[in-house]
């Protein structure tokens, strides 16, 4: 660069700049194009695979939301409607009733309703559920496994790096297509598919 006249230097600088500009543009375009060819038209969202989940209770604490986006959901089609529900009652509970001291759920979000002898319906009050999975664990241990933890997509922010997924010890978190955002069990799985096909998202 030394011996050349100043004018030539400026031109060379300009030339270098514009060619590097074009090169960078092509590079970015190339990367963009390559990724576009691989991209999914569908948005992906986070979900818990209930078959891998170990109910470690981290979902309750590690969500970026103050109240976790993970809630317990109930596949009624799998439920035995038991009186002695291991998801509802504390192990060694003194009586099978709705007394707070007998409930496994720390927030009383799992509601027990008498249907007919000897069946009880268990429903989840999502406002109260903190997604700790205590009931899920109880149900999985001695019951039918009709309860499971799921990301509720009316709440989930769909973070780029889910902070629960990062702390999940069993690596049960995965990304699923946004139009099939739940991994459900039993008949609910099939009826969910049917509803999605109908376009009914209730």
């Amino acid at each position: 660069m030394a011996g050349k006249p100043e004018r030539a230097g400026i031109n060379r600088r300009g030339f270098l700049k514009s060619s590097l500009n074009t090169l960078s543009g092509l590079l970015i375009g190339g990367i963009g194009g390559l990724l576009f060819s691989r991209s999914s038209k569908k948005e992906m969202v986070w979900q818990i695979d209930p078959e891998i989940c170990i109910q470690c209770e981290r979902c309750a604490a590690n969500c970026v939301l103050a109240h976790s986006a993970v809630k317990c959901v109930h596949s009624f089609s799998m439920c035995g409607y038991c009186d002695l529900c291991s998801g509802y009652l504390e192990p060694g509970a003194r009586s099978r009733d709705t007394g707070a001291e007998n409930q496994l759920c720390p927030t009383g979000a799992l509601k027990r309703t008498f249907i007919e002898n000897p069946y009880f319906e268990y429903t989840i009050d999502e406002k109260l559920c903190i997604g700790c999975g205590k009931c899920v664990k109880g149900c999985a241990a001695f019951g039918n496994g009709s309860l499971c933890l799921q990301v509720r997509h009316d709440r989930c922010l769909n973070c780029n790096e889910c902070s629960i997924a990062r702390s999940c010890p069993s690596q049960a978190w995965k990304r699923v297509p946004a139009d099939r955002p739940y991994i459900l069990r039993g008949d609910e799985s099939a009826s969910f598919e049917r509803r999605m096909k109908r376009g009914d998202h209730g």
Partner: protein
Amino acid sequence: MGKRSSGNNRRESIHRRGPAAAGMLILFSLLLAAVLGYAQIQERFPKPDFQTDYTRPDLSTPLPRAQVWEYVDIAVLIAALVLASYFAHRLRSRRKIFWLMVFSLVYFGFIRQGCVCAVGAVQNVAYALFNTGYAIPLSVIAFFVLPLVFTLFYGRTFCAAVCPLGAAQDAVILKPVRLSSTTAGLLGMLPVIYLGLAVLFAATGTGFIICRYDPFIGFFRFGASFAMVLFGAAVLLLGTVVARPYCRFLCPLGVLLDWMSRLSKKHVKITPDTCSNCRLCEESCPFGAIHKPNPSAQSPDKQTELRRLAVLLVLLPVIMFGAGWAGSRLYVPLARQHPTVALSEEILLENGGKRAVMTDATRAFRASGKTADELFEEAGRIQQRFRTGGWLLGGFIGIVFVFKLIGLTILRRRPEYEIDAGACFSCGRCFSFCPYEQLRLGTITQKELEEMEREGKNGSGAGGTSPMENNQNG
């Protein structure tokens, strides 16, 4: 599937025996659960046959945000980039840039809660490039490509008015201090290291550290861990005196935008017309992106300068390989950040009898049916990737460092006030300081301009060598 069908068989056999069987069944289940371990799903109890007209309720499955919002985000991004460039280049209006910045802070920050983010998109791109199985969402590609392309054409207008992270800091600048070019240059290496690490961790599937350590996302969401809130508050507090500290000394995307901006086809200029070296804009930039002129700057000794350049060019491969080697040596602690490697180390500890109590992770792994050898093999592969990645990371940091040194060595003659295209955010603060801009806006007359110029010239005459004293090679 197998599990379920065996459950169904049992269900058939105990069907309709009623609740009396329940006690027996629970005993049986207890045994079964003990044998099979937990997390095994069985249909241990039959589905009830309701005599009343009870129907099972439906499970509600609320859907995520409609897909169309993804396109809305892309549209808002494009609109904001176009407007930002238009405001900076054509209208030269700081006020309009400011209001666009406020809009971006509200929309991308508080409404979208920071999770459609150009800074973070770098990691998704790195992950997608090295993991073909990952289907990268369209919006992420757009948020990666568009800011870079706009910067290639118009400079960092994205930083000025579109990025919510920049906006949050820009809004708190109170009394910016000017950092020496050495300090700024040294601190400027941090984003390079951060970018390298973020790409390495993303490419190896370890995690997205840019998202993890985003200082402002806690504010956007009104909730984060205490440490991150503290970090965010510290950045904002520091931001009152050191303008935009995250953008300048941490932002990994800033490294790429810096390069693109240097190469940009057009870049904002301080003056709309000509520069008369009136010095009025000298202190207007809170980011230290205005170079003072050094018209009489001749390199003191061409030979010395050339020799210095030659030494640096010879040093380039040495530093590159040295840093690469150092990076590859770090593969053990770096790879430990990967969940699989971390798990395999825990398993190794337990198998060696060095730890008695199982963690949730190791218990889950042992229940999963995968063998330890498979895990170790996978962990070994990841470590190898980190060894290669460490070479690249170190080499990358080394190259950038040497080029920064070369940039400091070469003395460029600047006849007038010039913007440092790499560091300039195109925020438009300096525009109104220029008397030609005031003339263009019609707030002063030609005569007043001439008067100002005369005063400025006298000032600089009295100051004598002031532009020289602070030339950019310090």
